[in-house]
């Protein structure tokens, strides 16, 4: 823990040093937030195009269709459709969720919540953001190429992603973009892990850290270990495309020699499964804290929640094979992976029960962060339970590559993470920008998101159960899927409704930041005791004048021994006992 010295940076004065090349973790966090929101909109528009095509095959996309696809009169062409679902997945996972959940909240929260003045390596932190920007720029450029962007799915399996399946430069740029993204993530991970280990304020032992920090810290550990695995796969695939190596080319695809396309699947999923947890652990951490804060009572089973998150982190590294049951894996392996995957449900059940325990008999305040947190509890429950179906080998053989899988992973990776991200944004907004977002609009945003969101992903699971496959341009050429057309339309209407609901958020977000006569937030508008709420809003550039001394846990709420009129304690206060 950091007992010794932490310098106070000079206050940045110029626009460039304050907002562009900033070393301040708070500014970098906000940069990641803007960046993530931008990509969220791009990825969201792509989702609309995909859904429209599935609800109205061959019908021009309304309003902007003829502008986007003039040569087809506004109809999404089949090759563009493949590009759209590839880029939608890539953008949402790597360029929207990762920057918001890990980049924005990681950067903003870690030093403030552990009582440090900044990250341990501010320059590395700044570089991490700009590597991410460069990576995003490459991806944007790939959208403008003559043969289009990558179109081999977000998993980019060979042979789809080799020069045979994707002859254009779009796929190569996709690979380079993700490699740069990986470098950015690894830099962030080194910084986060080291900061949490070495810069915690005196008195803040690991079991006094907020669960948000636990989630982000565990995510960083997974990032540091598994993103380089993807890096190796990306390098080899780039070599296959650029230098003519044959790591992943086999059969008729290889002009000479032989490679192994399934090898890429191994490499991809060794990274890819932990990636699911990389995305969701910060959301779990945030929600675990917020449920306690707004139930006005300590987090039920705090230590067990932290340990369950750790157990899930460890188990997530040994289950990747459940993505590959259909690759003629030996039954011994499929059974092993199935057992290990099922095992994850045990620690998951522990912290889920702890969430419910936290809510039980709480004095719940239905603020917007709390509503979104409750939303996470609901959607993660559904997403988690449907995961058990897919973990089972025999059921997965039927459901593999159907919309059931799409619905399931959207519930876990998209819905949970998105709602968790909104919960965090509404919660820390006053500390970030010094103003309060409009609660009424935030609540409208919640309900108009939550209801259609469930329509979309439940609908998808129903379609998948009925046998509709993912990634088909027009699934309705098959007779057995034709009666799924009304359900597809329903899902698309829900998607459109959810898409429009996000304008409420955008309006609220921009209006609060740039609007006039917006009241300033107090230093602690939510009555919470973690360290970031002990300083003014917005947080000053030096964070803490004096490094705080931590004396109690992060969830000291509803203590009956408190006598001074408030129902919470700051972490810097001695625990009040009877």
């Amino acid at each position: 823990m950091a007992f010794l010295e932490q310098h106070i940076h000079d206050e940045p004065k110029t626009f460039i040093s304050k907002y562009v090349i900033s070393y301040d973790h708070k500014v970098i966090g906000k940069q990641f937030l803007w960046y993530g929101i931008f990509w969220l909109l791009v990825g969201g528009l792509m989702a609309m195009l995909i859904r429209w095509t599935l609800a109205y095959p061959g019908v021009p996309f309304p309003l902007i269709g003829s502008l986007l696809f003039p040569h087809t009169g506004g109809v999404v062409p089949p090759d563009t459709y493949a590009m759209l679902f590839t880029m939608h997945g890539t953008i949402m996972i790597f360029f929207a969720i990762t920057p918001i959940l890990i980049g924005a909240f990681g950067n903003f929260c870690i030093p403030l919540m552990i009582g440090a003045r900044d990250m341990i390596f501010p320059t590395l932190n700044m570089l991490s953001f700009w590597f991410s920007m460069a990576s995003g720029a490459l991806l944007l450029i790939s959208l403008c190429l003559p043969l289009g962007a990558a179109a081999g799915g977000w998993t980019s399996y060979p042979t789809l992603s080799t020069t045979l399946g994707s002859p254009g430069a779009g796929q190569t740029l996709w690979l380079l973009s993700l490699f740069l993204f990986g470098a950015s993530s690894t830099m962030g991970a080194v910084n986060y892990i080291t900061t949490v280990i070495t810069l915690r304020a005196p008195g803040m032992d690991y079991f006094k850290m907020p669960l948000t920090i636990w989630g982000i810290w565990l995510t960083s550990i997974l990032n540091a270990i598994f993103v380089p695995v993807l890096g190796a796969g990306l390098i080899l695939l780039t070599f296959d495309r650029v230098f003519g190596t044959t790591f992943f080319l086999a059969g008729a695809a290889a002009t000479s020699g032989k490679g192994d396309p399934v090898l890429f699947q191994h490499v991809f999923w060794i990274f890819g499964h932990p990636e699911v947890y990389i995305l969701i652990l910060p959301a779990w951490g945030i929600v675990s804290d917020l449920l306690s804060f707004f139930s006005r009572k300590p987090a039920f089973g705090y230590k067990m929640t932290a340990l369950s998150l750790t157990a899930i982190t460890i188990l997530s590294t040994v289950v990747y094979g459940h993505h590959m049951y259909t690759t003629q894996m030996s039954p011994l392996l499929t059974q092993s992976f199935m057992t290990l995957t099922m095992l994850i449900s045990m620690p998951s059940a522990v912290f889920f029960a702890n969430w419910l325990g936290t809510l039980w008999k709480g004095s719940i305040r239905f603020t917007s962060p709390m509503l979104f947190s409750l939303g996470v509890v609901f959607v993660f429950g559904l997403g988690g339970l449907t995961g058990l179906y897919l973990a089972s080998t025999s059921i997965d053989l039927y459901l593999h590559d159907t919309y059931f899988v799409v619905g399931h992973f959207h519930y876990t990776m998209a819905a949970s993470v998105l709602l968790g991200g909104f919960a965090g944004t509404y919660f820390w907004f006053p500390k970030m920008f010094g103003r309060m977002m409009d609660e009424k609009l935030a609540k409208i945003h919640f309900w108009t998101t939550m209801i259609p969101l469930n329509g979309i992903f439940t609908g998808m699971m129903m379609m998948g159960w009925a046998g509709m496959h993912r990634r088909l341009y027009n699934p309705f050429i098959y007779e057995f899927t034709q009666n799924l057309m009304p359900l597809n339309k329903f899902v698309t209407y829900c998607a459109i409704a959810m898409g429009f609901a996000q304008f409420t958020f955008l309006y609220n977000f921009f209006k609060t930041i740039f609007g006039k006569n917006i009241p300033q937030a107090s230093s602690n508008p939510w009555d919470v005791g973690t360290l970031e709420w002990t300083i003014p809003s917005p947080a000053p550039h030096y964070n803490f004048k004096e490094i705080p001394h931590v004396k109690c846990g992060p969830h000291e709420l509803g203590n009956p021994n408190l006598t001074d009129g408030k129902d919470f304690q700051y972490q810097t206060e001695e625990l009040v006992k009877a």
Partner: protein
Amino acid sequence: MATKAQIQEEKVFQNSVAMTVTLIAFGMMFATLFLGYFLVRANTAVWPPVEIQNMPKLLPFLSTLVMGLSSLTYLKMEKSESQRSLYWILTFALGIVFLVLQWILWGALKEKGILVSNGNVPSMVIAFTWIHAAHILLGLIALSWLGKYVLKKKEELTVIKLMNVGKFWHFLGVIWLLIYLMMFVL
């Protein structure tokens, strides 16, 4: 008030943690490459396959020798304050020699018909040496940065800087040793 020694100790600890995480990340990337190699090797009926039967022996051996020597000179640089500049020059020069040897090795492989397009085993031999050489280049950049302090005998040259670059350099040595043993010896 913290003493200078305490501050130094804490900084060493912070950097050790960061460098350990960094090396784990780099290690995982190379481990993935080795995993791919093991899988391919396990699934190849006859080893070595015909595509790599004429692998050069002397050049990779010399590279290993040079890499080992450069690690030794680096260790000397860390310990000997008076001859630090000399050992820095030696380490840097050996790094360059290693890259030149790799260049010659790639030429030799090409002459013997071991080409990247001849299947995944030759692809691996060549691509792994490329990837390692790219990291050596990174190592040389780090050494050049260090040289700025060593050659000008600047006070800012700290144990931490020497330690961090050293760990990375030795790590690359270990990776090369593994590549050498797996690709060229066993």
